């Protein structure tokens, strides 16, 4: 279990390799990489600024990660979230989950992304033709999160 919040890009492959190296109990490694799209939430964007609440962001990610470990038999996990200025094409967030069998790793990665979207204190401001515009929270993200409270892990 580990969480990192950083300005720098990350290397998804290097992280998967590092997490699985020397292990013979891991049968499944799932990674999710979220990237900045030119077709943003507020229209076509040239860049975005990702603001976060230092301290609380790490604590929330650790709490969500611990919840995933309580729900699924995970053998390891990592969450990396960037902040600062990003342009389309840049990676924003990385989630990696490890398990013996594939379904746990898939579900846990999916769960982590849904919770991270709705409870980790990060805010996006996109640069579009109108200037800087804050991204509004999406009801669909709340819906994606809420399915985990009725579905068994």
């Amino acid at each position, binding site marked *: 279990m580990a969480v990192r919040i950083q300005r720098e890009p990350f290397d998804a492959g290097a992280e998967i390799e590092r997490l699985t190296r020397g292990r013979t109990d891991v049968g499944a490694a799932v990674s999710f990489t*979220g990237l900045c799209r030119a077709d943003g*939430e507020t229209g076509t964007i040239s860049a975005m600024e*990702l*603001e*976060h*609440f230092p*301290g*609380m*962001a790490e*604590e*929330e990610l650790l709490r969500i990660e611990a919840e995933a470990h309580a729900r699924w038999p995970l053998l390891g996990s990592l969450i990396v*979230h960037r902040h600062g200025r990003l342009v389309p094409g840049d990676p*924003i*967030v990385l989630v990696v989950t490890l398990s013996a069998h594939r379904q746990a790793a898939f579900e846990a990665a999916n769960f982590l*992304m849904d919770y*991270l*979207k*709705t*409870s*980790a*204190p*990060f*805010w*996006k*401001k996109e640069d579009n033709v109108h200037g800087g515009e*804050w*991204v*509004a*929270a999406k009801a669909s993200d709340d819906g994606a999160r809420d399915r985990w409270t009725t579905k068994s892990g």
Partner: protein
Amino acid sequence: MKIRYFAWVRERVGRGEEEIALPETVKTVADVVAFLKTQGAEYETAFENEKIVRAALDRVHVKSDTPLANAGEIAFFPPMTGG
């Protein structure tokens, strides 16, 4: 009490954090919002739709009726849009 603001709440208030002496009558998160709204137009704008502003006490999400108790810091921010 230390008060922190993030994203558009921060922009509307015009600062990222401040130290404010709260009256004895301010007992809950909602009381802090109500008090701030008496302190100037910037707060009125920031909290004009106060139901959508979220709060954290000592970096833990809380509801508006949560008592401040001995919290050292309160933060206000919009719904999260990370990931």
